[in-house]
């Protein structure tokens, strides 16, 4: 019942994003705390099956991350030369790649918590939230969240785990593929295959 209520809450917060009703949407610290809680209680420890967890994660990911901006960052200079259809195709595939990547790790969850340590201004309208993921033995992993302010509140544009940026890693991975394949279509083909292989059956 509790899981259902949270699910509904997530769906509602996803579809009716409104900064005025939800003050956490504009406060970086509260924003990360909200998503950590939604992820842990609504997905990782929720008593729902894996398909449902993946679906919940997709909703959360769309609500918390600026996927089009991350897509532009990840493709870099080639974005300018990419057709609108290919841009759309990429954004959809990239979302699948992230959702399936994170879904594979749900079962590894062993009671870790996220503790926000501090925030620093980042870029013109952004904030870098510094946090640690703490496991039950007290060991910590550093996690930083790069946030940008949008019309409807904050959005995550990068996650940096132990100094490794998700956005930079994908960018350099895809730049290499684009260069070798001679353009976006080669990357889209390979991503399409990757998504088919990694989709939960």
């Amino acid at each position, binding site marked *: 019942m509790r899981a259902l209520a949270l699910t509904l809450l997530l769906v509602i917060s996803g579809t009716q994003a409104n900064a005025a009703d939800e003050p956490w949407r504009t406060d970086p610290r509260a924003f990360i705390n909200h998503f950590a809680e939604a992820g842990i209680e609504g997905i990782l420890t929720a008593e729902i099956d894996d398909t449902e967890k993946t679906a919940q994660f997709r909703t959360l990911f769309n609500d918390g991350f600026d996927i089009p901006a991350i897509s532009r960052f990840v493709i870099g*200079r080639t974005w300018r030369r990419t057709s609108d259809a290919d841009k759309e195709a990429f954004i959809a595939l990239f979302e699948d790649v992230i959702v399936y*990547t994170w879904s*594979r790790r749900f079962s590894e969850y062993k009671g870790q918590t996220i503790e926000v340590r501090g925030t620093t201004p980042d*870029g013109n309208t952004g904030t870098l939230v510094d946090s640690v993921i703490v496991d039950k033995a007290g060991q910590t992993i550093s996690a930083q969240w790069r946030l940008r302010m949008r019309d409807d509140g904050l959005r995550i544009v990068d996650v940096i785990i132990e100094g490794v940026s998700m956005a*930079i890693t994908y960018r350099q991975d895809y730049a*290499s593929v684009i260069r070798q394949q001679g353009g976006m279509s080669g990357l889209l083909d390979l991503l399409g295959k990757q998504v088919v292989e*990694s989709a939960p059956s």
Partner: protein
Amino acid sequence: MSRYTVSPHRLLRAVLPLVALVALSACADKPPASNPEALRAYEERNDPLEPWNRSMHQIDQGLNTVIFNPTIAVYQAIIPEPGRKGVTNVFRNFRAPITFVNDILQGEGSRASTTLGRFVINSTVGLLGLFDVAARMGLPYHYEDFGQTFAVWGMGEGPYLYVPILGPSGGRDLTGYAIDNMGIDAMAWIGRADNPFWWQIAYFGALATDTKSNAKPLLDELKASSVDHYAALRSVYRQNRAKEIRNGAPAPVPDFEDYEYEDGDGDPFSGLEINPTEAQTAARTD
């Protein structure tokens, strides 16, 4: 005693010129100055030996399949997680002199005394390093190597190098690795004394098994989530090294118009230092 011994130094001296020769013949083509975009991308990659490195990466993947993955599977099957943690602790303790010497060379007095304190406590109370007692006493583990020392001294990373078994490295880090393991590590001195060469083989074999067993989940994940595993690993290696060199201090906040391209036509990457090592070393404040 007529035992045939091969000193690692002699081996390296014999192999290095050959490696250099083959590597030079496998250079990636540098784009001409008339194509500034391609030239910039080439310099960002900083991987002039890419074709050679990619074949080394392939060989390494093969070695993993044939040797290391089966070894790790057996190792993980017979030794449960707490035991493996103990093995990692023993290696960390045995190799603490490497961190200690490099702490000092980097002028990190308080980190050096942490390393020394840990070594004394864990070697005794911790039963030759099996238990990390010092961490529970407020002396957390950290790791330094000569590659990081070179970086702190202002040396650039040099060309990227992929070395089978060792994995991603570079001109600076591989030189540092050789100094650490042939000059500082206790096993180098044990090996130089009148002891059989297979001691060192056994030692590095066990060390590689421990290291690879710990790294496997993350590397498998990277492989599954990347399209060009070689390029993704190169990126992760560099970012992680940059963080180690900063001793975990937060990366400097880049001053750039990164994600603010609402029209979707801009390059959100302009201005960001893509090869973070130099910029972040310079920004080190401690």
